[in-house]
């Protein structure tokens, strides 16, 4: 399917551009509990490391939270001393020895906290990436075991997105979110305790700002969702236009429609600009709004706290501590508010990956027969087969002797390609036997079976590499002479030499720099080079002209 020119659109992945996590609506997993447990199983081999991470995270946070309170004590000490001195109390002075000790303790606390923080992140990077590696490796191994039925039935983009985007999501959650959740949780509890111990009244003031900000932000959020939807829609429209104009480039040029294409593009582009500008603007004021509300509570705390100090209800250092706590409070709150979303989308991603891992595998090999070098006799005996419930082939008998050329003719959908699928054992029979040189094809290894065939498909798959690499795909040890001989036999040598770099021309990712017919010639050369006893050409020459076709045969 190399010639499908669909642009790769990242499925899943980050949600609205620039909208931030706040607007991400996580999709719901079907079986949350089961998937979550299964995901945990991947972490099991790294249990010890994880425990260390947990411990380090908790310790680091606890030490960090203790900081402002102790700092407050130092400031109060300073204030009392200075205040007494200011009022001229005899012998009053700032007790620098005590303050020095407190500050040393504080410095030690911060040092330890940072150390634990580092340890935690350092260990976690290994844990997260290795887990992702395991997951990816499991998927890779699985891909090899999946029957062709799976590949034919599923869109490539979807499978690709499971293997890349979904695993990426899991990885970044492990890397960042997991420890973030732990520290956020500990921070919130810790700060609450500290705040309450300083002053319940001030705590109430700073807590009130939370519902207020939710209240204030909700309508903005709603508006912004609408604008983001607009932006998404126009972006889709624009991308559609780009795709169409690029794939239709020769026609656009031939009919001199470049100007019209550009005009249309400009119109949609302008629309996108308008929609995007609004969406970005609205989403851009969410943060300032939150800061604003945070600042209001800061002001209130300064005022009320100041009054409380004059009444000797709390100490001056406590205000300093309190202000620091409120500043540190908002971040973990927003983070925890997102937990539900992040966990949900992570588990949903994991579920999609596990679904892939649970797909039915190819029937296991039974290798009781060895096929050293086949002579090339093929027989179908009472073969039954169907892709679904309904049988497409019923009780088919075919017998081919070595050296014979057999043509399979029939209209589209008659099952020509199916025969090849069965011969190569891409699909399993429903009944009957296929024999190669008299041996049951199910009794030999797939490798033996497939070495026997050289297959040239209607659909020409070439990969992103040089022409030479593509030709030697079936026989990596081939010499230069063999390569040229095979290409000449496939009538590909001449056109290869007309390409910019000859045999070293790199095919681009869609192999669009050569024509369909040329691709087929290359795949034929590839099959010829592999030199198999049985050669299968599945409409291999449909894009090759008849004369070349006859010459190849």
């Amino acid at each position: 399917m190399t010639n499908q020119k669909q642009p790769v659109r990242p499925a899943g992945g980050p949600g609205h551009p620039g909208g931030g996590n706040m607007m991400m609506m996580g999709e719901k997993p079907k079986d949350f509990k089961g998937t979550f447990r299964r995901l945990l199983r991947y972490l099991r081999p790294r249990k010890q490391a994880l425990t260390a991470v947990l411990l380090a995270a908790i310790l680091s946070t606890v030490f960090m939270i203790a900081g402002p309170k102790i700092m407050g004590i130092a400031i109060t000490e300073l204030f009392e001393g200075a205040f007494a001195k200011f009022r001229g109390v005899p012998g009053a002075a700032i007790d620098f020895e005590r303050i020095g000790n407190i500050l040393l303790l504080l410095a030690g606390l911060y040092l330890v906290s940072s150390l634990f923080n580092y340890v935690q992140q350092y260990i976690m990077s290994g844990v997260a990436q290795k887990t992702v590696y395991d997951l990816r490796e499991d998927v890779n191994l699985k891909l090899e075991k999946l029957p062709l039925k799976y590949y034919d039935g599923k869109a490539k983009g979807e499978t690709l997105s499971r293997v890349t985007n979904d695993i990426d999501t899991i990885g970044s959650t492990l890397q960042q979110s997991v420890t973030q959740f732990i520290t956020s949780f500990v921070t919130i509890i810790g700060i609450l305790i500290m705040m309450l111990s300083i002053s319940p009244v001030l705590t109430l003031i700073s807590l009130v700002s939370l519902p207020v900000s939710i209240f204030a932000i909700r309508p903005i959020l709603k508006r912004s969702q609408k604008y983001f939807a607009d932006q998404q829609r126009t972006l889709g429209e624009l991308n559609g236009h780009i795709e169409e104009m690029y794939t239709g480039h020769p026609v656009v040029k031939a009919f001199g429609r470049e100007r019209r294409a550009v005009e249309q593009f400009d119109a949609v582009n302008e629309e996108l600009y308008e929609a995007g500008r609004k969406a970005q603007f609205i989403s851009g004021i969410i943060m300032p709004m939150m800061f604003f509300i945070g600042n209001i509570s800061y002001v209130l705390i300064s005022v009320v706290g100041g009054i409380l100090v004059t009444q000797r209800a709390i100490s001056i250092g406590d205000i300093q501590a309190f202000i620091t706590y409120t500043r540190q409070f908002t971040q973990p709150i927003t983070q925890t508010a997102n937990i539900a979303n992040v966990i949900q989308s992570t588990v949903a991603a994991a579920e999609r990956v596990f679904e892939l891992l649970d797909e039915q595998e190819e029937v296991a090999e039974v290798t009781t027969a060895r096929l050293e070098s086949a002579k090339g006799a093929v027989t179908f005996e009472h073969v039954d087969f169907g892709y679904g419930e309904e049988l497409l082939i019923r009780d088919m008998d075919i017998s081919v002797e070595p050296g014979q050329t057999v043509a399979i003719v029939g209209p589209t959908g008659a099952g020509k390609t199916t025969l090849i699928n069965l011969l190569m054992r891409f699909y399993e029979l429903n009944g009957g036997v296929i024999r190669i040189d008299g041996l049951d094809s199910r009794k030999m290894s797939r490798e033996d079976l497939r070495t026997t065939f050289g297959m040239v498909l209607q659909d020409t798959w070439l990969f992103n590499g040089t022409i030479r690499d593509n030709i030697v795909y079936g026989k990596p040890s081939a010499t230069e002479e063999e390569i040229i001989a095979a290409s000449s036999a496939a009538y590909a040598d001449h056109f290869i030499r007309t390409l910019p770099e000859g045999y070293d021309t790199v095919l681009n990712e869609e192999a669009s720099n050569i024509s369909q017919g040329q691709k087929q010639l290359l795949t034929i050369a590839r099959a010829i080079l592999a030199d198999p006893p049985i050669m299968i050409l599945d409409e291999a020459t449909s894009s090759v002209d008849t004369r070349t076709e006859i010459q190849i045969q």
Partner: protein
Amino acid sequence: MLKLLKRLGVYKTAVLAVVLLVFLQSMADLYLPTLMADIIDNGVVTGDTPYIWKIGGIMLGVTALGAIASVIASYYSSKAAMGLGRDIRRSVFNHVERFSLQEFDQVGTASLITRTTNDITQVQQVVIMLLRMVVSAPIMFVGGLIMAVSKDAKLSLVIVVAMPFLVGAILLIFWKGMPLFAEVQKRLDRLNLVLRENLTGVRVIRAFNREREEKVRLNKANRELTDVSIRVNKVMAGMMPVMMLVMNLTVVGVIWFGGMRIDSGAMQIGDLMAFIQYVMQIMFALVMASVMFVMVPRAAVSARRINEVLEMEPTMQDEGVRKADRERGTLVFDRVTFRYPGAEEPVLSDVSFSAKAGEVTAIIGGTGSGKSTLVNLIPRFYDVSEGRIRVNGVEISDMPQEELRSKLGFVPQKALLFTGSIADNIRFGKENATIEEIEHAARVAQAEEFILGLPGKYESIVEQGGSNLSGGQKQRLSIARALVRKPDIYVFDDSFSALDFKTDAALRKALRSETEQATVMIVAQRVSTVLDADRIIVLEDGKVAGVGTHDQLLEDNAVYREIVESQLSEEEIA
């Protein structure tokens, strides 16, 4: 990246406004601690509650001002960022529209599409973040410093001492991290490429028993990505702890030295508290700025890919000024040779022929013999390497491309249609075509019957890529599109292949009367299509192996005879 950012110059005012407003907002944020210091020093110490309330009121005013500034800043920043995205998109699209097929071959259509869509979106995202967060970092930083110095210049020395440590640590981490980030992106792309190839090529991989090698390839890509990801994350693990540590230790230092300043009466307690908050604000600004480093490498990759497109100059110059009106309906190839740059052998060599109005010239030859290349030279999709091509008696490089193409009706090998109605698609050939002209073209192209069979007739919608039509229907529409132009030269590049023999014959008959004033070029695989051509050119490996009518060639051309024999049965030949 920088190169693209220069385009922000157009939005100078908006960007300037953003910087100014962010500055205002930062100053407001920084002014709050000063006011709080006043509350402490003048209100709390003296027990003056009304003063505390008054200052509190001012603080509310300041914070409201800051909020308003940042809302307006958001307005301008989204304007500038989205505007930039729009401009880049427009210039890339405009630029690509000027590309010849050679540039398309070079980059690949799908890649061009991703570059114009996803890559630009990626860059736009980063610019938004840049304007939103990163701009404020240096302002906050400098503003914080100014405020700190104004509070107590001597105490600011603590910050001055701490700063090199912090900046040094950040730079060190990024100096080590940046190349790793780029590497992660590279290896991720690699893994995705290998994966995609494994998914699309599964049949071939299994047929050639290459599962083991592919598994090794996948494993290698996976392991390499994991290794570098772990490395980058370990480096980045130091980031936050180091920044927090420096910040906290600075605060500790501020309290210690501030205490001494207070002791000597040079400073008040409230000022110290304000000072501590400045230090925190400065440090947080730096943390915010560090976000940029995570995003920029990603965007830099996209930016590079965009720039590659923008820097690619179309190989073809559109400098001709002559009108193509000397001899209507004539086409001359004069010793034309074409080779791809760097190719060992030319695709076409020394091709000459000339065709007059009312004549049909057919080109036949094997795969890779250069048939499609030959017709692609006529609309100047590629420029000839040697020799010249004349349309209507004028050399095609002497006329504007638009003039040249207005004389041509081109029907490509692949029937490319566009989203829109059937009528729209036919009208693509002639913008102001009347409905009669469209119907006539459809009739000649043998498309009328199936169009009238559709529920919406001529207004039926063609889906993207024409996926709701059959191959033969698409080909007929693509022929009608060329017919409605009433051009001087028709080019059919293997355009009858999806038609059954009956339709093929009927269409060619109808074409005859339609094209009396024009030259017709037909590239064909089927001999039956070219039987009655006035002139058949047989191509073999890019060279003309013979020119003549069917009967002449059958007589004296071995290559042609082989082609004919491979297709027609004995009696048909005779």
